[in-house]
């Protein structure tokens, strides 16, 4: 049974003030506003909806199935899958808010340790019933369409199964860890476009949307090794030129400025976005680009994919030493 995700412990933001005044600074006010948005996300409502769907299944799933209305169960399963995706996406919103808050040096959205994905997916209760394979439903249309566009590929009716991990969910269907997804995609990015597209399609959007963090973690020390020093603003152009061709080869319809923008932002977080046209960036574009950028540096250094495992594990376990090594 799911947990009540809506019950969060609210902790106050640090009471820093500007110039000795009692008024919070602009940044602190922004942080408080963002934490408020995070705390108002409807996790409790989503969990309740999931509970009710499971209740409906328990109430009469077997009756509908045995009366020749087996597709009714399929409808509830589909609804549950959509709900599951909504919960995962909502948790990704919280992660995004936390990431932004951390980036500006502020505490994240308060949590009570219960930020878990509630399984909404309903299962048949009739004895001997086989759970329906939900892989095709789980792949987000939104993600798939953008991957097809980026790789200049016609949509196909059949999609590969989404990669998942055991995670926290009792049904073993949690999205893949972002670092694991990065390793898998870096490996694929050393091959051809079709293979890379297939691996992107197998990536759960909730994992894919978080690729930037391990991607940047892996890219930065590799760039430092290639350059002989920590990458800075002056290195952005050369690094981008080294990688951009390969990004365009695997993702022919990627916005032209994106590889340089991603590398530029990493080298110079305060002014690296060179080709900014004012157009909003599609999140899938960056997600699909990071593995290629990392793979291209690995190729330039003559290293294999195991390096990604080492770099992401190092960053997770030994943050202080990694930061020191990267010159940050």
């Amino acid at each position, binding site marked *: 049974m799911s947990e009540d995700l809506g019950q969060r412990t609210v902790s106050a933001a640090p009471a820093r003030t500007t110039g000795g005044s009692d008024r919070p600074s602009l940044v602190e006010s*922004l942080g408080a*506003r*963002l934490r*408020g*948005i995070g705390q*108002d*996300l*409807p996790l409790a*409502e*989503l969990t*309740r*909806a999931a509970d*009710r*769907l499971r*209740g*409906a*299944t328990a*109430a*009469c*799933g077997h*009756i*509908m199935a045995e*009366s020749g*209305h087996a*597709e*009714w169960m399929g*409808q*509830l399963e*589909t*609804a549950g899958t*959509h*709900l599951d*995706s*909504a919960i995962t*996406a*909502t948790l*990704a*919103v919280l*992660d*995004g*808010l*936390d*990431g*932004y808050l951390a*980036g500006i040096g502020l505490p994240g959205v308060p949590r009570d340790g219960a930020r878990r994905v509630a399984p909404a997916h309903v299962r048949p209760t009739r004895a001997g019933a086989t759970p329906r394979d939900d892989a095709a439903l789980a792949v*987000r249309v*939104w993600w798939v369409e953008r991957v097809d566009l980026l790789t200049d590929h016609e949509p196909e009716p059949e999609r590969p199964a989404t990669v998942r991990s055991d995670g926290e969910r009792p049904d073993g269907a949690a999205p893949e860890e972002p670092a694991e997804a990065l390793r898998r995609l870096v490996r694929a990015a050393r091959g051809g476009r079709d293979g890379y597209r297939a691996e992107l399609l197998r990536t759960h959007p*909730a994992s894919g*949307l*978080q690729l*930037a963090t391990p991607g940047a973690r892996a890219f930065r020390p590799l760039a430092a090794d290639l350059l002989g020093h920590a990458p800075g603003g002056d290195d952005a152009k050369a690094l981008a030129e080294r990688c951009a061709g390969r990004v365009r080869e695997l993702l022919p319809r990627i916005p032209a400025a994106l590889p340089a923008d991603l590398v530029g*932002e990493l080298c110079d977080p305060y002014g690296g*976005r060179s080709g*900014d046209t004012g157009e*909003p*960036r*599609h*999140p*899938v574009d*960056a997600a699909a680009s990071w593995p290629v950028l990392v793979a291209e540096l690995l190729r330039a250094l003559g290293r294999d994919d195991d390096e990604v495992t080492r770099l992401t594990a190092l960053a997770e376990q030994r943050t202080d030493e990694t930061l020191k090594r990267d010159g940050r």
Partner: protein
Amino acid sequence: MTINVAEVKSAIHAAVSEVQDSQQAVQLATEKLDAAQQNLALAVEGSGAEAVETAQAALVQARDDLDNCLATTVGAIEQAQTYLASL
């Protein structure tokens, strides 16, 4: 075990009620997601930060998922009610 029509009807009524409760919760969640989208857009206007873009995209995705969920449950209720009427 034998089950009569009244029991079947009762079970289906209970299931429909559960699905309707689920729909209400989804509608509330949808309203909250809409508010979050608006508030976030106002708060971070001009940011361009990747984490913010991720959050905004995930909000759009969650909203889309809930629309699909609601549409599917409408179909499920119609089907259950059609079956109820035939009993």
